[in-house]
């Protein structure tokens, strides 16, 4: 009732407040280089997305409401055809503090090749293989901005399950994932109240972050089951975890050093994972305005079970070429080599540039090489693809 009254109280200001409307939409054509592993999968795929954004602020800018929607239609995979509220959040700001209430997105961390520390939002796994797209997370977050750092406490009252590719989709396991029947360690299932705290601070040329999370694991394990027709499937199992994380970035001359490490307790077992490396920049290459950045990161994970451990002893080398032109052209190239198995590696290219104020093109390509059945990337060995996207911004 109280919220209703305050809503009604806000309503007049809301009506007169200016609402900004913006967003993007895109068409993506994918082509897979090899015949698929499973006969139902196709070599080419067309997909479109629409991502509108609404924003308004009131009370002298101390309050704001942001909405970010997302919808994708996929030609082949009905699981990849999905809608999500990426953000729908009310922010109330004071002089040195703020409260965010609603569905929001939070990013933690510093490294490029892997995001270990980042844990608040569930990965939108059908969007892209890089794991950088996230589902909106319901939360109440209180932040304090002080001379000694920025501290945020999160209460996360509802868990978002991971979405998996359907049988017609690529990037999937041999067996279907039974997303209708997940298993939770918590008796409250997806209504388990997760919480987290993060502190982040700038110390001269250093950025330091510490975080702690207690709640439902965003990464599921899988339990092999069979239905009444004895058809096998994988049921996602979401255990309770406690995770401590640290992330550091240091600017040391022409070098930028980055590190993320986590210690996670899951089902009475502990494991450690880290990723660390550097970025080296050449500015104004050969007397041009081009910048070239070299990236190298080492990924380590001490889990024995490799289901979720793509990066247990791997090395990423990459290069980002920034043209500094009017069109904002950028090319990112990378190769992740498994140091345990010389024949397991992944390569990627991301290139993009503006056509004009509204339009942009993008080319993404992923190449997987894996002859090692015990590695999770073995499932993707025939999923090499190139994708051309045309994006419209408004």
């Amino acid at each position: 009732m109280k919220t209703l009254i305050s809503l009604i109280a806000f309503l007049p200001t809301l009506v007169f407040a200016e609402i900004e409307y913006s967003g993007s939409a895109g068409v993506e054509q994918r082509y897979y280089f090899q015949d698929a592993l499973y006969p139902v999968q196709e070599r080419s795929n067309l997909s479109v997305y629409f991502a509108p954004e609404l924003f308004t602020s009131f009370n002298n800018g101390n309050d704001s409401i942001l909405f970010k929607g997302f919808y994708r239609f996929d030609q082949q995979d009905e699981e990849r055809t999905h809608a999500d509220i990426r953000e729908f959040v009310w922010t109330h700001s004071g002089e040195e503090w703020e409260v965010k209430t609603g569905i929001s997105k939070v990013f933690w961390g510093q490294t490029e090749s892997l995001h270990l520390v980042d844990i608040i939002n569930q990965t939108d796994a059908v969007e892209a293989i890089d794991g950088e797209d996230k589902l909106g997370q319901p939360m109440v977050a209180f932040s304090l901005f002080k001379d000694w750092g920025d501290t945020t406490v999160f209460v996360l009252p509802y868990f978002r399950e991971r979405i998996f590719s359907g049988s017609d989709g690529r990037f999937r396991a041999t067996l279907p994932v039974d997303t209708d029947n997940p298993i939770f360690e918590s008796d409250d299932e997806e209504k388990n109240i997760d919480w987290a705290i993060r502190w982040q601070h700038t110390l001269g040329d250093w950025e330091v972050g510490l975080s702690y999370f207690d709640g439902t694991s965003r990464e599921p394990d899988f339990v092999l089951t069979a239905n009444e027709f004895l058809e096998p499937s994988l049921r996602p199992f979401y255990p309770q975890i406690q995770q401590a994380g640290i992330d550091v970035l240091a600017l040391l001359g022409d070098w930028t050093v980055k590190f993320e490490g986590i210690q996670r307790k899951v089902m009475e077992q502990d494991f450690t994972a880290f990723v660390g490396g550097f970025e080296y920049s050449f500015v104004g290459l050969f007397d041009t305005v081009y910048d070239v950045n070299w990236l190298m990161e080492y990924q380590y994970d001490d889990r024995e079970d490799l289901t979720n451990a793509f990066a247990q002893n791997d090395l990423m080398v990459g290069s980002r070429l920034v043209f500094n032109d009017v069109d904002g052209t950028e090319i990112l190239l990378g190769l992740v080599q498994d140091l345990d198995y010389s024949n397991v590696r992944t390569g990627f290219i991301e290139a993009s540039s503006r056509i004009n104020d509204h339009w942009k093109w993008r080319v993404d390509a992923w190449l997987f090489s894996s002859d090692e059945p015990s590695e999770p990337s073995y499932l993707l060995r025939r999923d090499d693809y190139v994708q051309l996207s045309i994006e419209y911004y408004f």
Partner: protein
Amino acid sequence: MLNKSLLMNKCIISSLSKVVLVFTLMTSSLYSYAQSAEDKGLAIAKERKLRDMGWGDSTGNLSMILRNAQGEEVERKIRLKSLEMVDDGDKGLTIFDQPLDVKGTAFLSFSHALKPDDQWMFLPKLSKVKRIRSRNKSGPFMGSEFAFEDMSSFEIEKYNFKHLRDETFEGQASFVSEQVPIDKDSGYSKQITWVDKKHYRVLKVEFYDRKGSLLKELINYEFTLYLHKFWRPMRIEMFNEQNGKSTDLVTHELSFNTGLTDSDFNKGTLKNVR
């Protein structure tokens, strides 16, 4: 309460600057007969900095017109919030409105006199606040002919000065001085500035590349007086002599005393900036 204390601060600053002004005028007249070119260059730069002290904070709406050698134009829209710092370089917040694919991107910069500026960028797609290396200060700002270092605040400690000659520029009696950047990461070997004798406004700057060749020429147009004291050019033209490209930085709207405080320049709230 806060605005009041800010106002009081500003009063203190402006009365302080008057005292300093009188003092420098006295000392400069004492020394004028035995002044070296370096001393005179430094004195001009100090007076230039002094005359621009006490502006407090400002908010502006700007366009960048990028023009290639063929004369084709592209427009960028940005909003700029600035906060004057008394003991340090200024704080700046740039919000990108156009091109639309970078709309919502925010660039936060804490300028420093001697050590590199602290800079962060908020990338809306990832919801990520990224610390950026300010050492690549010679790189272009948004694909324009302005480098990042051209957007940073003017601080005495960044240069060695030398007065070259007096000259009339566009009908205004001016000091022509050389300023050599101290930072080895600067993209320039030197800058030649034309500063008018009446108001100590920068009228023109020539930028020389690391090899010593003329790279760019900046001319300030349409000076407007704010708060009865501070001159701001409403149009800045940067012309690249080597590739024929140019960028106009046009101020559509500029206001002072908008109540900005330190907390408006916080990397933690960069996400909320609109």
